[in-house]
């Protein structure tokens, strides 16, 4: 596993460095973060979704959880710092 990971890490770095090499001569331009240039796409505040709509999702959500408690909380690890107390 460690061997494999190292190998993969090396190939990842290779890719990155080869990019730097290939981009060497290219002009410095403004970065394009998005495929379109659009601003101020917002939505108004308003009425929340009805509870019935969320109830269906909740069932599916909980059934996907590796572990949950009987109230519907997701069960995860206890925090290490809390554990030490």
């Amino acid at each position, binding site marked *: 596993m460690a061997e494999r990971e190292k190998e993969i890490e090396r190939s990842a770095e290779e890719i990155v460095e080869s*990019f730097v090499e290939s*981009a060497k001569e290219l002009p410095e331009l403004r970065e394009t*973060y998005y495929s*379109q240039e659009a601003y101020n796409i917002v939505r108004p505040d308003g009425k929340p979704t009805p509870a019935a709509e969320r109830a269906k*999702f909740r069932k*599916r959500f909980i059934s996907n*959880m590796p572990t949950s408690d009987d109230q519907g909380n997701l069960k995860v690890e206890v925090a290490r710092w809390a554990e030490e107390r």
Partner: protein
Amino acid sequence: MGRGTLEKLDAIHRGELSAVENVQRALEQIEKLDKQIKAFIELNPNARAEAEAVDRRIKRGERAGKLAGLAIGAKSNINVGDLRTTCASKTLGNYVATYDAEVVKRVRAAGGIIIGMNNMDEFACGSSGETSAFGPTDNPAAPGRIPGGSSSGSAAAIAAGMCDLCLASDTGGSIRNPASHCGVVGIRPTQGLVPSHGLIELSVSFDQIGPLAPDVYGTALMLETIAGRNPDECTTLDLSSVNYLDKLDVKIESIRVGTSPKFSELTDPAVMKVIDGAVEKLHDLGAEVVEVELPHLEKGLSAYYVIMSAEFFSATRKFDGRKYGRRIEEVCGDEVLRRIKCGDYISRKEQRGKYYQRALQVRTLLRREFKEALDRVDVIVGPTVPKLPHELGTKLSPAEMRAYDYLTSPISLAGTCAGVIKAGEVNGIPVGLQVQGRVLGEGTVLRVMHALEAVK
């Protein structure tokens, strides 16, 4: 599945073929062939019941929708509620979709029946279909060879007649590449044309859902069904509806087609010969063929890889194994891990400028160059993939594997659209022509492909 999409729709409308029969035939075909081909990971147990509902609507004379009765495959990175949507990864091996993707809602509303989830490269990280945790997909058009990827199962399912149309996705070529290798039709729409809510991310700013189909009509039909603004998403374009079918038959005499000498520099001569033949046909159909400049085309791939990795790293942080599935780093394949490592490395604070931001500058450059070229012509045509698909099981280096995306990833950077249609064959292996259009130039791209399809 034997006949064209339009004829099949007509048969369903006239009552000669029921939705149930159609779905049944698709399932039979899957039953017969899929052990070998592995185009599907999961089938929809409700497909028959859904088809019955469509038939009832047709019988009552109600509007059953544009896709009424058609059997649709969904790539395994598109959420279909209550079906396992795994991205062909052990990470999501037991994730049962908690909701319908926006495109799935639209397909269902149009009477399409999702029959199952297609195989794919794990998390869409691959160009061959071989990285799936469920095993590689075979190429029905060239048995024993890769079908291309990452929408491997989708293209193979179409090529093998296992379903009528497919919902697939394209990030750096994932629709176009397998369309080329499998000899089917597909299109990567302009970024933002099709809503992506429900598409499991490879790289958000490049990911686009699009169709794979046996013919141009089917491609246009599916695109019409799923395109258009979703007000609940930030990045969909402000288009209420689109219409491609009406103009599909308009002649292409007035169209200017661009080619670039760059293409032949990067492409296997045997492949290029087929492409040149297709360009010749377009010329014969009355299109004006001119040469355009794409000075830094070959710089696109590595810049694409850098940006995609940064976004993929970000998108995979949710796969921590707590809420669903398993922690990604613990169970994923090599290529997925490579991209995560790559993204981790380049989006660190001290590296950002050198890698991530630099790649975003190259993106600006490619956008500019494609825009300039496409200001002069209506479409640019060329090869989709620089080489023929390798035989399944051949060991390729990561660099060789990446090279499959050489000609498709620049379009992703440019944010424009591109369709693929079979141009011919090399030793019986399909070769697809990539028709690259302007931003929202899907109508023109489809028209050009349709004209070419007609002369075959």
